[in-house]
């Protein structure tokens, strides 16, 4: 029996049908007031502003002239935009895919009880909870230059040193691998929680019926974690596309803009080129992209729930 999980309306309390005909109660509105005010100031007002900026040719000092869709047209004609779109896509794709698989594998590993499991579970969350900058410092030491540990190990196998941060292709690999390393604990934690909630009697019954491990995994485990998996995947896609820190701290978007995702592009246009209109346009497009992606995935999830 699949667990019902729906991001859109988390109605988990017992049904309270008697509230439907109640008189207007101001309390819920009041409770939300402060939160709404904050959200308005910090997100809604900038959003409107941002949309407006994207239709102008302004700088950080002045608003500039109205250009209608000019900025968007320039983006659609700009190789930098497609480059960052492409990198954002592969960054998110590989991150979600590999961190999910890794997270699932480790969750399955940590599901059965064994001594020291609690310790392992916590220790494996470290990549996620440590500040991004610390992660980058550590990885940088491992992969920078030919003295880095990774190259030393490669050298002992006779392979040449790889200058990860100095070659476009390898820099992309490095950024993605580090992101996966930082992301998988989150997947692992949620999947582990979902695994532990599955009723063990299902497995008992299956074993009695002669099912093997693989069949049990496929027919019992997977359907039970399907919903949480989709939710985590959505969240992880959003976080991946919005990730500024990982590429910025490691490569500043280089070399030659190879690791520049949409957020870094927006940053460069705004602060490097002093073109607030272009920077805002990129950000708006990113938001639209995320909304489309989330809607598609949530529909998928609602269908299967």
């Amino acid at each position, binding site marked *: 029996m699949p667990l019902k999980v729906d991001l859109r309306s988390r109605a988990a309390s017992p049904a309270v049908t008697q509230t439907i005909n109640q008189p207007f109660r101001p309390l819920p509105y009041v409770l939300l007031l402060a939160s709404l005010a904050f959200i308005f100031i910090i997100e809604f007002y900038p959003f409107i502003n941002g949309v407006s900026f994207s239709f102008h040719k302004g700088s950080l000092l002045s608003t500039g002239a109205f250009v209608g869709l000019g900025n968007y047209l320039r983006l659609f004609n700009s190789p930098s935009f497609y480059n960052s779109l492409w990198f954002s896509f592969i960054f998110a794709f590989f991150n979600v895919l590999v961190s999910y698989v890794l997270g699932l594998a480790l969750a399955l590993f940590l599901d059965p009880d064994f001594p020291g499991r609690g310790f392992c579970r916590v220790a494996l969350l470290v990549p996620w909870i440590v500040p991004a900058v610390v992660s980058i410092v550590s990885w940088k030491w491992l992969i920078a230059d030919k003295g880095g540990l990774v190259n030393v190990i490669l050298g002992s196998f006779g392979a040449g040193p790889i200058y990860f941060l100095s070659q476009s292709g390898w820099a992309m690999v490095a950024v993605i691998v580090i992101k996966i390393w930082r992301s998988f604990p989150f997947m692992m934690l949620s999947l582990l929680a979902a695994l532990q909630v599955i009723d063990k009697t299902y497995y008992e019954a299956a074993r009695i019926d002669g099912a093997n491990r693989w069949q049990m995994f496929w027919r019992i485990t997977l359907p039970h974690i399907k919903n949480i998996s989709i939710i985590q995947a959505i969240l992880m896609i959003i976080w991946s596309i919005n990730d500024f820190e990982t590429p910025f701290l490691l490569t500043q978007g280089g070399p030659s803009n190879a690791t520049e995702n949409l957020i870094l592009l927006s940053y460069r246009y705004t602060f490097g080129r*002093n073109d607030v209109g272009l920077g805002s346009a990129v950000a708006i497009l990113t938001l639209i992209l995320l909304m489309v992606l989330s809607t598609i995935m949530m529909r998928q999830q609602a269908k299967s729930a």
Partner: protein
Amino acid sequence: MINNGGGLFTKERTLDLGSDRNLEALGFLADLVKNQDVYPASAGYSGEDAVSAFSQGKGALFLSNPGLSNRLPKIADKFGLVQPLVGPHGDKGTIFWVNNIMLYKQGKHPAETKFFLEWWSEHEKDLWTKGHNTQLPVRKSFAADPYFQGDPETKFILDNYVPVAKTTATLATEIFPKLNDVEGEGALQSLSQSLLQGKDVNSSVKTAADRLKSVLED
């Protein structure tokens, strides 16, 4: 590019990244890379990495701002300045930036601000003589001061490099506001990273030129 008599712009301030002199200079760099005379990791290097490599004796020539002996006191006696390099066509050149003092249009007291600016520019020598700023003064009258003439390194730079130094606006003679965006956009940095990775000169230059054109169109 500047050393070879080229520059980003023509005299009329039109973008001219693909000029003959520029391509010659960039081609020279690309050939060094092809010849494996360039350290493979340099595409990922920052300025700090370059200083560090030089100070560890891993680099032979280093292009730096004035004051390098102050930054690397321990090895200051091990390096010195060379004469400005002469390009294949006999050109000398190096790059410099001017630190401008800016007055804002929105200011409320334009006349007073301008008056102060004039006074300040005539009296700011203390920034160096007392404040020990490592940049160079613009005024020749300042530069004649023993504070500068007495330091061999600074005197050498003033005598040999400043006369041939040019801004990023070259071949145009005056700097203009858009230069800020041009430099901040990072196109040249990406260009050098591409060349240091051994990518094709012409396509890298074209990419950079397109980006710069886009910045200038704003």
